């Protein structure tokens, strides 16, 4: 294991995949940057990527499909005449790389007439030929497909032994991401990371309804050992899910109204993602996502004053946490990654940045970096896409000596305990959201009294976080996340983790989804 602190490790060099390091990215980068320099650009960077994906799907004990995909190519980005220019290509020759650099410069010339504010980047130290590899033991792409398919087949067969289970599905997504970054300043960075998303779901029908129950295991920046080393108890979950589904199918429909909620990390991570993670992206706050994903209620003029939530709310941005899906040593602009505060004592105190935005708001970096400093949030999901500001691992911190989940439930007279994520939606300024979950347990007088069905919770972001009375202790903190966060035009996806403790919220609006659909 190595390279998990955000600093390069000399030992990482030997862990880089030789099938990647044998590719001619250094010579291509030299050719592209050399040509860009000849054309007089103010900045040029070269990014060579190979991203390998494998998806295996199983349904009712039969392999439904196994597919491997490899995205390979390179991109050149320049600042010329004050404008961005970007081009990508697949011709892996020095001449091909130089031609792509020429195209990027030509695009910048077209863009210059429409660029009112010249683009400038915050400074960043030069990193001279460093490497970084994420923390994992076994690359899942090195495990035979048949072995992985057999595991998933076994999962669905075990699920189907449950009396309430009519059908079962399982899947395994695996990604190996290799990147080489070089720029005219002299930085050269080679990186490799692994991520893994296993999942399963059981489906069944009751007297007048059907429903499902899915695994709540999080996707991880780990290797295949995640499935075998006990870090998640797969056997216990496979045994419990059919029983939980059977209970859900017989559960009463919830009575709409106002409830206190105790929310488990397997559900709360997604609420954090939508209502804090995206809302504290500075590109959104400045309007750069306005035509697509939207802007943010957390506008820049409110930095340091916006009451985001209750005083127990402390949220960090972090691209260094071990096994985080957004964790990496250096971002796609050659910036060394870090962790920092976004919300402290319930007040907005920070944003997620790339180099261009850091230059626009240098005061965010403090007096040590008068020209501004990015906090390392630039990311492109493929060699064919331009890096944009993407999410760090945005996490809610636990209380140092905080309560257990059981203690939090014990404080509730009438409420719901929420486990697992399902449906999610939030408006384009991150005010109004609605979430469902895998399981909702009714709490009466401090105790769980069985599941209820047809539940959604709906709130406004600052009201919701303002109603957070308590966060659990470190023993309740879990790192969850997603592979598929979408953003930007053209659309890009990114993987990101969110850690959080179990937390207690007072007086949240609960909808009955059957009523919502009724007439």
């Amino acid at each position: 294991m190595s390279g998990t602190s955000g600093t390069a490790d000399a030992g990482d060099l030997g862990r880089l995949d030789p099938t990647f390091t044998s590719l001619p990215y250094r010579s291509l980068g030299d050719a592209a940057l050399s040509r860009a320099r000849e054309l007089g650009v103010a900045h040029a960077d070269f990014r060579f990527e190979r991203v390998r994906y494998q998806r295996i799907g199983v349904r009712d004990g039969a392999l439904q499909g196994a597919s491997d995909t490899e995205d390979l190519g390179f991109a050149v980005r320049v600042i010329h005449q004050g404008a961005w220019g970007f081009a990508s290509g697949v011709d892996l020759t020095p001449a091909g790389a130089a031609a792509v650099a020429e195209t990027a410069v030509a695009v910048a010339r077209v863009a210059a007439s429409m660029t009112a504010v010249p683009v400038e980047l915050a400074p960043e130290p030069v990193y001279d030929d460093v490497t970084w590899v994420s923390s994992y033991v076994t690359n899942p792409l090195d495990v035979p497909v048949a072995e992985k398919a057999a595991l998933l087949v076994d999962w669905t067969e075990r699920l189907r032994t449950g009396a309430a289970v009519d059908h079962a599905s399982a899947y395994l997504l695996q990604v190996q991401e290799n990147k080489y970054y070089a720029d005219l300043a002299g930085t050269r960075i080679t990186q490799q990371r692994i991520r893994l998303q296993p999942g399963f779901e059981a489906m069944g029908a009751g007297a007048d309804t059907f429903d499902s129950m899915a695994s709540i295991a999080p996707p991880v920046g780990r290797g295949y050992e995640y499935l075998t080393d006990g870090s998640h108890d797969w056997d216990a979950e496979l045994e419990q899910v059919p029983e939980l589904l059977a209970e859900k199918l017989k559960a009463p429909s919830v009575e709409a109204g106002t409830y206190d909620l105790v929310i488990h990390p397997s559900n709360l991570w997604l609420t954090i993602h939508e209502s804090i993670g995206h809302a504290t992206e500075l590109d959104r706050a400045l309007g750069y996502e306005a035509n697509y994903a939207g802007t943010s209620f957390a506008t820049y003029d409110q930095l340091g004053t916006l009451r985001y939530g209750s005083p127990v709310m402390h949220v960090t941005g972090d691209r260094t946490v071990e096994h985080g899906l957004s964790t990496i040593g250096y971002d796609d602009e050659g910036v060394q990654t870090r962790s920092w505060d976004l919300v402290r004592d319930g007040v907005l105190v920070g944003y997620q940045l790339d180099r261009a935005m850091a230059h626009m708001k240098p005061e965010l970096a403090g007096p040590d970096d008068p020209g501004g400093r990015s906090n390392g949030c630039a990311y492109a999901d493929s060699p064919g896409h331009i890096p944009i500001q993407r999410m760090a691992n945005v996490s809610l911190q636990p209380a140092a000596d905080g309560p257990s989940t059981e203690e939090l439930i014990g404080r509730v007279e009438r409420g719901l305990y929420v486990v697992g994520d399902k449906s999610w939606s939030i408006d384009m300024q991150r005010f109004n959201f609605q979430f469902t979950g895998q399981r909702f347990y009714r709490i009466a007088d401090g105790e769980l009294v069985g599941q209820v069905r047809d539940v959604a919770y709906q709130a406004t972001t600052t009201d919701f976080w303002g109603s957070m009375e308590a966060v659990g202790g470190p023993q309740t903190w879990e790192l969850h996340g997603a592979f598929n966060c979408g953003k930007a035009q053209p659309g890009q996806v990114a993987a990101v983790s969110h850690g959080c403790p179990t937390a207690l919220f007072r007086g949240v609006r609960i909808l009955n989804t059957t009523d919502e659909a009724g007439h």
Partner: protein
Amino acid sequence: MTTLATPQSLVDQALAVTTADDCIVIVRDATSANLRWANNTLTTNGVMHGITATVVSFIRTAHGVATASVSGAASTQAQVTALVEKADAAARASSPAEDAADLVRGAASPDWDNAPVPTDVHVYDDFAPALGEAFGRASGAGRVLYGFVNHELTTTYLGSTTGLRLRHVQPTGHYGCTGKNAALTESAWVGGATRDFSGVDALALDAELERRLAWGSRRVDLPAGRYDTILPPTAVADLMIDAYWSAGARVAWEGQSVFSKRGGGTRIGERLTSPGVHLYSDPAYAALECAPFVVASSSGNETSVFDNGLPLARTDWLRDGELTSLLQTRHSAEMTHQPVTPVVDNLVLDVDGGQGSVADLVAGTERGLLLTCLWYIREVDPQSLLLTGLTRDGVYLVEGGEITGSVNNFRFNESPVDLLRRFTAASATVPSFSREWGDDYFSRTATPALRVPDFNMSSVSQAM
């Protein structure tokens, strides 16, 4: 100077070197060019070129046919050979496929030998100068523009050891522009799909945004509730795409969707919506043309690699309000005892008697809401296909047949299937563009505007 091989030679190379019993090769040559802007200035842009190959290998065993699919960048013979080796090895290590069927044989496109058709930044030769002028005009008038244009050309080559040699050229383009007033308290959006950007005028887009923002000079705050609501074609497209994506036959057959019959089977043959409602796909629909054959890189609930090359034709999903077909592979068709009706990459909603435009529906509304588009739509309950989402970039109050002001945004909870049962008026069907799904997933739609008498605005959104 280029070392890139032709797509046809990549297909030939793959089929020549495979050691599998059968092999299908899909080569896609894709070019794209885009411009993005915000705050009245260009922000990012790009020109991209990619060539990918998907190799699907089939190995016959005593227990069935095993298959595996491997995709990757492939611009040289060596790269495609490496993909074939991986696919062949993966198929040999795989288990028998549940959807095994005979591969399609022998069909060939007359234009097979033609080169890929590219696009580049010159597709904006007329649009870009006008956009620069629109920035100046908007700045001078206190408007802020945010937007994106994208044009792609993908040429697909599909070859097989059973003789398929199919080629398809797919242009995909779209434009969208959001306008806000200087205080950022009013927002409007216009957007659409295009095959070639002819006739897309940045100044005309800005003029329409100016007109819509003027509607916001009177602001009316309304509470949550059920409203007589006009959904314009773009919002109808937003919702119909979700209905289409939920129409998998296998999932319905197994009892897990709104198209499942209680007690088992599908609802094919049931009247689900008002009479006169027709939902269909047609690869030849004018201006929405799409691939007339199946291209499947991997198998799943609604796709099968064994179906590659199957011809596609007009398919009615709802005919006169009756569910007539669901998304079928040959495997699911055998399971559900229905005809084979694979996914088609466009969608049309027609309503008998639908005529006029959004303006005509507004003129016929005594009091209600006119939406612009919907956003962040997600499924809440598959049994009813209850969806949640939000209004965005313009909700307008209609009084006495006229737009009289702008209204706050709402969160809605509604089912598209139920909306097709409850609507009271429809306009003519026109090319439309889903704000939610059009950019990245599904841009080829034609839909009418619909007036729904009791659209469920579940809560108020403060977003502006």
